[in-house]
């Protein structure tokens, strides 16, 4: 590029002569019009509007002109470049439209080809069901507590008002751990219920205590369609001043509403557990037949066995003797506790016919449940 020079005559600059500029413009317009694809147009664009195109080179010469000549030359080049850019944009639009109409169609693939290259995983529905129940209680303000599966007999039974000769002790078929001397008197069992976590919690924390305890428990049942020797419970415990049976009812109703839905009747049946008094079994109205299968052999219900009710679990007001054994003042505090069998809830909530499917680990059973239920 030349330096500005007052004596420099624009007319003498070849590239800025109007006929040369117009020729360059026309050449560009022709090249754009001749482009038949976006690629060709891109090449024409580089050739006619790029740094080394005739119009760009001409534009640079303007800087060297004396001030009085700059305006006219600038106008000349500006008009030419404007026309070129306009033609380019127009042709670009035309060719893109054509591509959209033709080329993209030609590029079509079969999107229905199965594309399942990422392996699928899933969490076990009993795990996620326990979490859902935990979350319901955590939202109410409860803590989640855990305890060991191999448990001291004292915590599994004695502390829960099940003395050594209590008839209920033989109701729960217990796995006993062998003592160091080979005898059965180790004082250690596979816990038959999650209730020892209640005792542990009360020994561990001062009231008010609001905890929910999920976990595996063990009984010497053979595996069949409705029993498994290793199963899961969720235990809940509230110990505070002024806790009553009414609080228990409200809490269970809230859980059922969250877990299963509204509009189903609950039946509270008096029952017996040594660690609660009064004790109740909670039955939920069968949500499949809503009780209409009862005494109606034409419409049997597999879900409830035509009983109309589904057992959810047991509960009650904590027996003051349990509070005493755990060092809690029964004159000041009272509590409620409940225990729910997760397998049964899963069977009912998700129409699982056979409990064996939950324990055998067949991936075809677990996969549909995904990450949460």
């Amino acid at each position, binding site marked *: 590029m030349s330096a500005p020079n007052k004596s420099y005559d624009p007319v003498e600059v070849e590239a800025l002569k109007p006929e040369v500029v117009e020729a360059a413009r026309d050449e560009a317009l022709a090249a754009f019009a001749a482009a038949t694809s976006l690629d060709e147009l891109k090449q024409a664009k580089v050739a006619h509007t790029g740094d080394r195109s005739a119009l760009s080179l001409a534009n640079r010469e303007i800087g060297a002109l004396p001030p009085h000549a700059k305006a006219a030359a600038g106008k000349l080049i500006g008009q030419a470049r404007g026309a070129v850019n306009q033609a380019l944009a127009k042709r670009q639009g035309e060719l893109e439209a054509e591509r959209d109409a033709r080329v993209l169609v030609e590029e079509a693939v079969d999107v229905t*080809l199965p594309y*399942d*290259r*990422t*392996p699928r995983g*899933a*969490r*076990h529905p*009993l*795990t996620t069901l326990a979490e859902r129940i935990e979350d319901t209680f*955590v939202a109410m303000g*409860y*803590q989640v507590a855990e305890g*060991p*599966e*191999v*448990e*001291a007999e*004292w915590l599994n039974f*004695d502390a829960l*008002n099940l003395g050594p*000769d209590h008839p209920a002790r*033989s*109701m729960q078929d217990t*796995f*006993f*751990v*062998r*003592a*160091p001397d080979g005898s059965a008197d*180790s*004082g*250690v069992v*596979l816990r038959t219920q999650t209730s020892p976590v209640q005792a542990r919690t009360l020994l561990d924390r001062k009231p008010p205590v*609001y905890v929910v305890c999920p976990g*595996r428990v063990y009984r010497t049942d*053979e595996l069949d369609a409705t029993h498994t*020797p290793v199963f899961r419970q969720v235990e809940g415990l509230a110990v*505070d001043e002024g*806790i009553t*049976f*009414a609080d228990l*009812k*409200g*809490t269970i109703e*809230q859980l059922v509403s969250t877990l299963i839905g509204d509009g189903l009747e609950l*039946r*509270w*049946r008096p029952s*017996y557990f040594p660690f609660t*008094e*009064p004790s*109740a079994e909670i039955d939920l109205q069968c949500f499949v037949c809503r009780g209409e299968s009862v005494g109606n052999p034409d419409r049997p219900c597999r879900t409830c066995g035509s009983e109309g009710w589904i057992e959810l679990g047991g509960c009650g*007001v904590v027996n*003051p003797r349990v509070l005493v054994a755990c*060092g809690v003042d029964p004159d000041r505090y009272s509590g409620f506790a409940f225990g729910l069998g997760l397998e049964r809830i899963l069977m009912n909530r998700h129409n699982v016919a056979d409990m064996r499917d939950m*324990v055998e*680990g067949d*991936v*075809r059973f677990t996969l549909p449940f995904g990450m949460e239920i």
Partner: protein
Amino acid sequence: MRVPLSWLREYVDLPAGETGRDVAERLVRAGLEVETVEQIGGDLKGPLVVGEVLSIEELTGFKKPIRHCWVNVGEANGTGDPQEIVCGATNFAVGDKVVVVLPGAVLPGPFPIAARQTYGHTSAGMICSARELGMGDDHDGIIVLPPEYEPGTDAIELLQLVDEVLDIAVTPDRGYCLSMRGVAREAAAAYGLPLADPALLDVPPANSFGYLVKVNDPAGCDRFVARTVVGIDPAAKSPIWLQRRLQKAGIRPISLAVDITNYVMLEVGQPLHAYDKQRVDGPITVRRAEPGESLTTLDGVKRTLSAEDLLICDNSGPIGLAGVMGGASTEILDPAAGPGTTEVIIEAAHFDPVAIARGAKRHKLPSEASKRFERGVDPEAARAAAQRAVDLLVLIAGGTAEAGVTDIAAPHPVRTITIAADLPDRVAGTGYGRETVTRRLQEIGCSVSGADVLEVTPPTWRPDLTDPYDLAEEVIRLEGYDNVPARMPTVPPGKGLTEAQRTHRRVGVALAGAGFVEVNNYPFVGEASFDALGLEPDDRRRRTVTLVNPLNDEEPGLRTTLLPGLLGALRRNIGRGNTDLAIFETGTVFLPKDELSVAPRPAVDRRPSAEELAALDAALPHQPRRVAVALAGERLPSGWWGKGSAAGWADAIEAARAVARAAGVELDVRRGQLLPWHPGRCAELVVAGTDRVVGHAGELHPRAVKALGLPERTAAMELDLDLLSADGAVRVDGPPVSGFPVATQDVALIVDAAVPAAEVEAALRAGAGELLEAIRLFDVFTGEQVGEGRKSLAYALRFRAADRTLTADEASAAREAAVAEAVARTGAVLRGA
């Protein structure tokens, strides 16, 4: 307890239209667990009548005996003529009264009856067996009725074939409901109807000339009533009504005396025992067993007795295991096998529940009697029960009740419970009021006095009522749980899940997200599980917590590793045709402590001491939480897009990294060596910056793979989650993100094949210094160019400064420093240098 509705109605005048289901519903709401309501003879339809066998012609030429009979069925067939019937049974004779079903009837099944041609004759109906009538599966023989019934009499009514039976699972606190009397009491309360108490009988007072009984252990036996009946007709049989009631209640009729004791037990709840008086040698003594004594019980088993066993004895020694089972030597004799019993002693006693429970458990002899004594029997029912049995023996067997009445009773303190009248209100969270509380307690048989504070004496049949809360429960139960209001407690604000709980969830989500499917396996293992893994005989993992009573004798131990269960699940899946598998499990393992101890049994009337609590925990094994994965088949599937890749050791290690990432822990991987992993393909997983080994991952040893029947190259990982997160949660500081350009430099290093890539990378990182932003191994190459026993590792290094654009010289200098460190630490040679 099986309760026939027809029998229950004898004590409570239930509304006529009330069905078994209706009654069950009421009882359920009062706290009795009615498991089933059985419809007996629901599909039965007559005519079913008494018939008299007039003639029997034995047909020959058939494979089995066949009889052609003429039977008088009175007017039941409409004509009064004898009925022609072909029958395959032979246990009846001409003149016997039998049960005949006529054409048009329907037997349980349902099994419609029609006249038909068979064995060359017409058979217009059937002579019935007990099984065909749904009276029990005991025998196939024809029912032969007592001779007094008239031909043509309706047998449905006679045999009480149509009924409903409520099967009630009695909870341990309600021993009194193991009787018709107890269930009737609950039914009466539920319907608000009066109860006709079968134990309200006139009983003569005790006197001094009853059978001689000595109770040497009044703690074990606080009541012993004995009565004697003589002159019994040994051939007398239980009448049909009695047999039917026993059958419906689930007890098999045996002989009249035994049937009567069983019947009274069902009726009143008092277990009775009948001795053949002529076989009892001298006075009866109740005492504990002496060393070396034995007793042959009614079931024919000779039992060695323990010093704790409570016995009934005579001069010959033990003649019964008190409250559990009688002895064979004084058993009522079967008249079919010789001279039958003509004189009996009826025992109605009350034994200590604990002594009976332990005895039944020790001898593995749970009996109808022990079941009741364990749960508590009404000690005041003994006299009435004995009287009832005596009455029945006199009435049915033609016996004579002797005047002697033995009744030995240890003094029974009157139990009085003091209860605040508003306790039920406070427990339930509602307002019943004192009047309701008093009325409900009276309904269950308590006597009640007082105002704001009530003095309550529970009835003798409710030994379970011992404290005020027991009484509160009764009131709330009878008022109905459905009538307790529902309300929510005010829970103080919670803190949500703990870090450990959140970590456990994240681990599950991470693995499932990475394509693993969760399984839950039983924790039971045996020697074979460890043998299959190929563990050495002295491997620590063979030392298990062992069960006394395992489900399967071959698997008495609890797992010390998740692998046996997990690999079992893998094999099960493969066996079912699921071939490309990635599964995981989280759960506890059970590791016995070095020093084994026995857990104490502290008292329960107070909080245990700190030492006692420590001793409880010391007796438990370590129970850390683990996670494990197993993989087989293709990890990434082949498909139309091209070839996939087989699952292998690297996937197992990657799973460990996914777990560690979810736990917020950085993991170092070292070469490891632990069975059941392949010795050359096993990684030891270490928490970065520590020496804490948290697990292993890699390909399984080919021997283990073979022993377990798994596909070749099966891979697995197991890691201890508690150890992994032992340092607690680390709070991540947000890194400064530099906006200056990156300078990328590649470097290829040749090292000995045995040098771990992790060491080379660590050296490069250390040498490159702060400017290094990231490092990635993008190729591993072996071959002639790099030389035998050598490998080439190609890395891409990304350099960036926080405060300036790096010059080419700076980046190169950092790369050279990185290489120099790798050369120094690992003997690497720069490729192409």
